[in-house]
């Protein structure tokens, strides 16, 4: 069996690349919303994709949540799917900041826009540091106003081997909201990622 686990050096390397990508994403978000984003060290965790649904059950149990998927495809077989997960009540706050009128726009449209801002800027920043470039599938709302999204998460996670969990807290000047970003990566892309990280590490 191929070893998909990361060494401590690889994990530290990935954490730092993620910090830099978060910095780029927060800067975009701050400029877009004309506010200040307080950056914290995002908690990352690498887990077996099959364990993902159980890990989020407790946090989101019984709450209306929004779950949006975005597929990404990079060079050299680096690909995967990101899932942005947050409580739906937070969506209202972001929508207000983005100037959405409750009636004018469909909820699905609003949710995909938010996902695009939070996820795509982050992934672009990550890709740039990996000397890669990502293209994206159209975002897909997997679930909203749905208490049973865990089963949907199970169906999605089922296709992948490794999950990179990134817990992010966006703290803006006036309020804060939490969201979870999950990068689901297939086994061969994990190997590719490990090789890239080793190359980055070898440079320093």
């Amino acid at each position, binding site marked *: 069996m191929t070893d998909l686990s990361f060494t401590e*050096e690889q994990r*530290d*390397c990935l*954490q*730092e690349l993620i*910090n*830099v990508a*978060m*910095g*780029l994403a*927060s*800067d975009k978000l*701050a*400029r877009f919303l004309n506010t*200040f*984003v307080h*950056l*914290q*060290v995002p908690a990352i965790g690498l887990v077996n994709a099959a364990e993902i649904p159980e890990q989020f059950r407790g946090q989101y149990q019984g709450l209306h949540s929004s779950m949006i998927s975005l597929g990404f495809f990079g060079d050299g077989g680096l690909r995967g799917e990101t899932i942005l997960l947050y409580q739906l009540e937070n969506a209202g706050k972001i929508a207000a900041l983005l100037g959405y009128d409750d009636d004018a726009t469909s909820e699905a449209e609003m949710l995909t826009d938010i996902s695009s801002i939070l996820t795509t800027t982050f992934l672009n920043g990550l890709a740039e*540091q990996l000397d890669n470039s990502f293209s994206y599938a159209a975002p897909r709302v997997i679930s909203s106003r749905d208490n049973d999204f865990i089963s949907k998460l199970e169906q999605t996670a089922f296709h992948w081997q490794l999950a990179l969990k990134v817990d992010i807290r966006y703290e803006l000047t006036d309020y804060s909201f939490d969201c979870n970003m999950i990068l689901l990566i297939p086994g061969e892309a994990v190997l590719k990622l490990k090789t890239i990280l080793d190359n*980055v*590490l070898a440079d*320093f």
Partner: protein
Amino acid sequence: MALTALICDDSLLARNQMKKSLPAEFDAAIVTATNGLEALTVLRSQEVGVVFLDLTMPELDGVGVLEAIKAEKMDVFVIVVSADIQPEMQKRVMDLGALAFIQKPVNTDKLSAVMRQYGLI
């Protein structure tokens, strides 16, 4: 006597990147810290000429370090090296007395230019 330079960053990769990005002609003893509290311990216990300071760190962040340096009137150059590139953050650290702000990943030319400007090389 050679200068002592402190590299403060919670990431081993970032500390190594920083070390390697320093100009060859920079004659200094390098010490490291992995968060703001460790950095302050170093700064209070020995003479340090320049700090390369990350901002987003556990325990105590870079802004906290700058505030302590200012409050305790420590005589040290601070060059902020951070991924948090928001204009407001850059202004905040410069207002707190940082010499310069360098965006991560470190550009060696920019770093050399800043260090030359302040007579560090």
